[in-house]
């Protein structure tokens, strides 16, 4: 693989991490969605690049999914949900931006340390990619646990999953990548629909998952 391929892939992956950070300090849902769309876009780009580099055409499918489904459909859908629920103005973070960022830094550092213990035998591209992917995954998780309401968590989950796809595509010649990305898209669709259902069935007055937890068999 030539130097330029490596650099571009590297750059895109790094960009993905950066956008994850951006997601971390968004506190308006709309903004969050937009940033997420950007995240997905970058992913699509990176996947496409990998497809080209590894000349693995099936990866283009994944890229397309990322582009269409994640960068467009999902954000739009969530946007509408937010409008429905009228929760677009609320600040729904658990921890402040600062601490969240610090934690994020720590996580990235951690993933770097862990990954760089991997010997050079695994090819560098994969190695770097994995490091980035791992940090994206961790940041996604961090987001899930620092966001109060379902939309925020879904976004967190989706960026986590973006990290996975990044890793999967980075892994040369890995089979089933497309299937997996499809499977995940379905999963996400489920989640979104789930929120929808709960809302439409008037079961829960808010999709703040804390409210979901009020009905508990053991709290008589």
């Amino acid at each position, binding site marked *: 693989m030539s130097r330029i391929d490596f650099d571009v892939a590297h750059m895109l992956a790094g960009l993905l991490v950066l956008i994850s950070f951006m997601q971390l300090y968004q506190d308006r849902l709309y903004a969050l969605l937009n940033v997420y769309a950007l995240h997905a876009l970058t992913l699509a780009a990176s996947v496409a690049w990998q497809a080209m580099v590894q000349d693995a055409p099936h990866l283009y499918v994944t890229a397309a999914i990322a582009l269409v489904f994640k960068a467009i459909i999902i954000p739009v859908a969530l946007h509408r949900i937010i409008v429905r629920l009228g929760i677009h103005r609320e600040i729904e973070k658990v921890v402040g931006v600062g601490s969240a960022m610090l934690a994020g830094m720590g996580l990235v550092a951690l993933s770097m340390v862990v990954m760089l213990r991997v010997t050079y035998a*695994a*090819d560098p591209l994969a190695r770097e990619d994995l490091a980035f992917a791992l940090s994206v995954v961790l940041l996604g998780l961090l987001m899930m646990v620092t966001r109060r309401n379902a939309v925020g968590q879904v976004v967190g989950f989706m960026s986590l999953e973006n990290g*996975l796809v990044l890793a*999967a595509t980075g892994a040369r010649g890995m*089979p*089933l990548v497309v299937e*997996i990305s499809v499977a995940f898209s379905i999963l996400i669709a489920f989640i979104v629909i789930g929120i929808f259902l*709960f809302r439409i069935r008037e079961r829960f007055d808010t999709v703040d*998952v804390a409210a979901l937890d009020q009905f508990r*068999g053991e709290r008589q």
Partner: protein
Amino acid sequence: MTFDALAGVLLIPAVAAALLAALPDYRVTARLNVAAAALTFLCALSLFVRRPQSGAYLIVDDLNATFIVLTTFVGLSTSVFSLSYIGHELQIGRLTPPFVRFYHAMYQVLMFAMNLALIANNIGLMWVAIELATLTTVLMVGIYRTHEALEAAWKYFILGSVGIALALFGTILVYMAARPVVGEGLDAMVWTVLVRRAGAFDPALLDLAFVFLLLGYGTKVGLAPLHAWLPDAHAEGPTPISAVLSGLLLNVALYALLRFKMLLAANAGALAPGPLMVTLGLISLVFAAFMLYRRRDIKRLFAYSSIEHMGIITFAFGMGGPLANFAGLLHMTMHSLTKSAIFFAVGHVAQVKGTQRIADMGGLTETHPVLGWGLILGVVAIAGLPPLGIFMSEFLVVSSTFARAPLLAIVLVFGLLVGLAGLFLRLNSIAFGEPRGAVGKAQASYVPMFAHLSLVVAAGVYMPPALVAWFQNVAGLLG
């Protein structure tokens, strides 16, 4: 034309699922469900006789043959149980016919998914199968459409999905580790190949992979602190599903873990997976044991006991060595049989009493002797008292551990004792004392329950040499 058992094990459930989704009448579907389960079980049995060649996608070896037979058997008995259970649910209108149809279809899908997960030779395929199983159970847990059911399903869904993601990341890492050695493409995901070449893999990558797999699949196993979904899912879903969850799905997830443990064990440089599993196991054991004391819901109670036992099993496999591994396998089998039997009993009890609140049921041995004593027998078994099978496995685990790592054994024993006390604290108020709650006649099929229990009793006293040789062989494989 040679008959391929593997195809049978996979195709029968798949076809049955499609059929059941199509057929409207519940009487037909329920019986069909049983029939399909029975056929699958027969196919699985035939694996003992003639074992088909394992390919790039499917494999049958000593390890999973046992699991397949166990899974299909419990699947069969559970389907028999659900015959009477679902009937009752229909009568009291807790379920409507369309839901029942959906339920039966999903049941077979679940069977298909679990069998696939067990015989998958490709770690990606295994992952897909387990996720399929998870999603089906999510749908079934929420089937009652009550607040609690939906909440439980949602919790299960979210936590499960995160687990899925982590497991996938682990799988990718394993591929990354394998690729430089095995080369790109499918082979790098074929388990048989992996385990053969694992010695040359990059240990650091393997370590990382195992961490993710442990957490990902550990979520499915229900190890604390990843257990959160398990109690509610058991408590709010239909009881047959609770039985299958506790009896089978947890095992399947653990089976996946074992596969990867063997992978690590084959690599000298990699960190020993033992300590991690031992720690998680002990945490789950002690934590679940303490959680038993405050339970008000009978199904949640036994769900926590499942966590406890998964902890014990994980601990045993973590300790490793022929004795502990044998004990682990035995415990796994016994636990599936016993716990599903207990859930059969609990299901009928809950139906008779019309509630799952322990406070509203009492004096069961007076009002419903068969149910009551059956439940007692089950709890006695699950508490690890003789002469039942779990006693033997606990005997082996504790005694073999104490000679090797006394402190661990002390913690283990402490957990066991606390757990036993918690279980019997609740059992006393359910089975003994003045009768409480409804005393109506139970229209129940006791066959599955007592079939399981008698197997457990038998195993506690006598185990057929063939089975023993089998287990020992597998224990050897696990290293």
